């Protein structure tokens, strides 16, 4: 059979070349697959390292002891304990700050109250010595008792040493003529006159006036001598107890009201003449 006799269109099979090509393709693909496996392996290794790092960060598990559930659980438990300790610490700090805040609030309230008290005392003392007019001084004493203390029925009594009896200077809540005659030698008022210590009967603060039983008897002094008393029979209905400032106001009146009255009385006795204060320079 010659070449010219070969059937046209049918290629001659080269089995050797085909085999070689198959083998080459097989090995090339094998190599590619191997490379792909190596890349996957590398990627997975990297992921393992990543996960170990995350686990360590999350649970404090040592990087060299990865993998077991026990380790992960222990890490999480440790983390929870750590967070709880942190929370407890924060709560303690918060409680400390809250306590401090409450202290500040209380101190602020104290300071505000003290400020108000001082303002009232300042106004009262300033007013007591703001005039030498006897009627005005008397009115100021009444106003302090009514407006600042909250007394309702009360009187200012002065000791008449010649008659050894009280004289009513002024009264509020009761007509001057109806003020009971009080002894200078017996009873609660006389005790205050003798001893010089004020009487505060707290059981009488929230009750109606009983002219037989004063709620408050406060001495009026010039120096060490008691020259009169303030007698309070009842307080305004909304005033059921005395505050610290009220006791201070009675102290203030005790120490200053009588001397203010005395000064005003001496001025009144001058009958309009100038007080000639300059003459004091020769008396000191």
């Amino acid at each position, binding site marked *: 059979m010659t070449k010219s006799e070969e059937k046209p269109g049918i290629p001659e099979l080269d089995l050797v070349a085909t085999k070689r090509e198959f083998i080459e393709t097989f090995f090339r693909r094998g190599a590619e697959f191997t490379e792909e496996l190596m890349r996957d392996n590398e990627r997975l290794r990297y992921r393992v390292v990543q996960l170990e790092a995350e686990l360590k960060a999350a649970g404090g598990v040592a990087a060299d002891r990865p993998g077991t559930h026990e380790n992960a659980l222990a890490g999480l438990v440790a983390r929870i304990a750590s967070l709880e300790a942190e929370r407890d610490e924060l709560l303690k700090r918060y409680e400390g700050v809250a306590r401090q805040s409450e202290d500040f609030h209380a101190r602020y309230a104290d300071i505000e109250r003290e*400020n*108000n008290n001082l*303002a*009232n005392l300042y*106004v*009262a003392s*300033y*007013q007591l010595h*703001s005039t030498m007019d006897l009627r*005005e001084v008397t*009115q*100021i004493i009444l*106003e*302090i008792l*009514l*407006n*600042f*203390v*909250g007394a*309702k029925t009360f009187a200012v009594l002065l000791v008449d040493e010649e008659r050894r009896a009280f004289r009513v200077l002024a009264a509020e809540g009761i007509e001057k003529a109806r003020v009971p005659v009080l002894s200078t030698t017996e009873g609660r008022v006389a005790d205050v006159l003798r001893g010089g210590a004020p009487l505060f009967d707290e059981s009488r603060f929230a009750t109606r006036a009983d002219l037989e039983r004063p709620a408050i008897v406060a001495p009026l002094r010039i120096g060490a001598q008691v020259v009169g008393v303030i007698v309070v029979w009842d307080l*305004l*209905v*909304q*005033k059921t107890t005395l505050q610290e400032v009220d006791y201070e106001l009675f102290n203030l009146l005790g120490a200053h009201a009588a001397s203010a009255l005395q000064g005003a009385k001496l001025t009144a006795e001058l009958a309009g003449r100038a007080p000639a204060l300059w003459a004091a320079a020769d008396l000191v």
Partner: protein
Amino acid sequence: MRQLLVFALHRIRGLTVIEADDGVDALKKMSQQKLDIILTDINMPIMDGLKLVKRVRSDEALKDIPVIIITTEGADEDRQRALALGANAYITKPIQAPQVIAKVKELLKLT
């Protein structure tokens, strides 16, 4: 009350205090000069504080002036009555000077 209040109110810078003896005297003084605020007691001779508030609120020229009542009357119905008549504030005695000053400043918008 007047003397102590006047003294306390003088602590407010720029405030001039005009005193009146009762409600009628107060209305007379209000007709003579413009006022910014009124402080009144309830218990006053001739015209009491509540009647004064009523008159002020019914007067076109005076009706917008803030009124503070300072009184010994501590009952809630007294307070309600005064506020219903048009009082802006109701302070019961005993008073604290800073409390009154603060209320005056508040109503005059000085704070």
